[in-house]
């Protein structure tokens, strides 16, 4: 573990103060960046706590004169997303049904792919990997129409499995990328030892590699969950009434061109829609652990 400073104590005073100063500078830098990142959230939060009246007349990025949670209530359960005026709440479940399986499947597949490419490489594995990577760049706008066709042919048009399928396909490149690039630095001796122990391909993956992958699983889950949860284009194109994800609802609240704009509700809805993702960040963040490979090999 690298530390800029060791534990504090009395000895050479100037050195110690130097370290304490350094530590302070470090914290100040971190906090300044935190402020930078928080600024828009601050604007959104304050706006969501204002009444529409105040927004129309007041300074947009000022603190609310009077705090009201009405917008939050509206966003959650009253805002209109069409003729239905039940807020974003009903759409949450769709998003969950799409995101959870899609994240799980794409992460697992990506982990296996990465594992093969990094640890069971064969002729052509790198080519496969390159093809996969390049696939990350295909613009979703162009896949929309042929994909719609394919989904139609497969009878999955407008269904949640259809959406899961799409998200898995276009998430694979990234999940494979993350895992492969993590697994290449894991000593190959581990695979060797497990082979000698009689473990097969899947056993080694499951018992040895998955437990070693916590940080990268976190990163992958964060990425995939965010991408899928926040996806709008696929969500709007491959859903139908009843399967629309929360982003479509959010969009419907926020994005009507000719309706009255209720910024406070918009902001509240956006924050609400982002909460599950935030939750994932907080929970997953715990597994950013260090030293998983410690003690495995010497060299």
């Amino acid at each position, binding site marked *: 573990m690298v530390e800029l400073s060791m534990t504090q104590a009395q000895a050479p005073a100037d050195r110690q103060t130097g370290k304490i100063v350094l530590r302070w500078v470090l914290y100040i830098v971190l906090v300044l960046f935190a402020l930078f990142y928080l600024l828009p959230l601050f604007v959104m939060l304050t706006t969501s706590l204002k009444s*529409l*009246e105040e927004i*129309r*007349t007041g300074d947009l990025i000022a603190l609310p004169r009077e705090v009201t949670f009405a917008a939050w209530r509206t966003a959650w359960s009253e*805002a*209109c*997303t*069409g*003729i*239905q*005026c039940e807020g974003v709440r009903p759409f949450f479940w769709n998003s969950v049904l799409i995101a959870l399986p899609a994240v799980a499947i794409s992460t697992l597949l990506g982990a296996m792919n990465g594992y093969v490419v990094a640890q069971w490489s064969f002729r052509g594995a790198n080519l496969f990997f390159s093809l996969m990577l390049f696939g990350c760049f295909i613009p979703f706008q162009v896949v*929309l*129409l042929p*994909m*719609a*066709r394919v*989904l*139609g042919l497969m009878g999955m*048009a*407008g269904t949640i499995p259809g959406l899961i399928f799409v998200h898995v396909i276009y998430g694979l490149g990234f999940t494979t990328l993350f895992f492969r690039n993590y697994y290449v630095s894991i000593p190959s001796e581990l695979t060797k030892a497990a082979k000698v122990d009689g473990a097969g391909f899947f056993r080694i993956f499951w018992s040895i590699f998955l437990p070693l992958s916590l940080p990268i699983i976190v990163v992958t889950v964060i990425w995939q969950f965010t991408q899928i949860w926040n996806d*709008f*284009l696929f969500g*709007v*194109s*491959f*859903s*139908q*009434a*009843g399967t*629309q994800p929360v982003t*479509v609802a959010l*969009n*419907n*609240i*926020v*994005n*009507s*061109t*000719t*309706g*009255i*704009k*209720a910024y406070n509700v918009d902001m509240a809805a956006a924050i609400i829609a982002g909460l599950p993702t935030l939750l994932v960040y907080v929970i997953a963040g715990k597994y950013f652990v260090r030293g998983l490979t410690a003690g495995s090999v010497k060299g």
Partner: protein
Amino acid sequence: EPTAEVLHYWTSGGEAKSVAVLQKEFADKGGSWTDMPVAGGGGDAAMTALRARVLSGNAPTAVQLKGPAIQEWYEEGVLADITDVAEANNWEAVLPASIAGHMKCEGTWCAAPVNVHRVDWIWANAEVLSANGIEMPTTWDAFNAAAEKLQEAGIIPLAHGGQAWQDATIFEAVALGILGPEGYRKAFVELDKETLTSDAMIAVFDQMRIMRGFVDSNFSGRDWNLATSMVMNGEAAFQIMGDWAKGEFMAAGKVPGEDFLCASTPGEGFLYNVDSFAMFDVDGEDKKAGQQLLAELVVGQNFQKVFNLNKGSIPARTDVTLDEFDSCAHLSSEDMKASSEGGSLLPSYAHGMALRGAQAGAITDVVTAHFNSDMSSTDAVQMLADGIANSM
């Protein structure tokens, strides 16, 4: 049992309530309505979804479609024929001819109109105008003069949001005023090359350049409703925007005629933006029945009234009583009748009524590029011609 899955992009509170009326009527007649709302980008997102749905063989039963897009979809062979309903309900008689024209595809009826938005409105803060002794302008020169006066008084003459479609909204109002209804039709409906490159068109861009001077420096990217707020707050005097802006004024408790003024933009003519429903070819008797019922209800008297009261627009039917409507709506309705007779009832290009997407887009590109740079008017006209040619 008639069923309908309706793809539309009316999702804001007022709009949603309006559509809910339709749903209720539909349900009262025994229909079951599945709502498929997709807002965003003035219907772009809905159109994206529509395309995917159509390609996947899972088209919605009814779709909010407007303008030439109806004909485009028809050409793809995916629209249903609702001539039966139209004839049974005598749409021909109750709809203005030019609006009816949008609803027909090669002679058959293929869509049902919901409302008429007027686009060429100019909104003003009554107090600011009277304080500065200014009347609602009726010519662009008058507008320019008023604006200069306001500018001297430290008031922003024109509240504007610098988004391409808002630029286009001003542009078409200016173009209608300067080119006149006939010139507008030639230029933006028929894409007549001569008109597009005429001196009058240069004058239109000149006026745009002048308008640019009346806009505050922070207009870029601003939402239209924030511009409306500026008018409401007295920060700015005028805004050129469709009649949905009225909703913002009303929502803030402002009274038309007292707190704010509405007038058509200088010049003759009426630019409309008509929302309509097109029916897609679907399998299943229930769905077909749903389409018929829906079409009938959409153009029905009651829905047309209730919906437009909510939405700020006016009914597409000319025979709906307007007692409950406000003064601006009355003005709009009268102007519509007049211009319908005078042949100056024209489709808004900025809102996708006049041209197909590619061409309308090409024009908007030039308009917004010109408005946001120091491009000369002649260059702009040249680019306009090139852009349209390139878009074909």
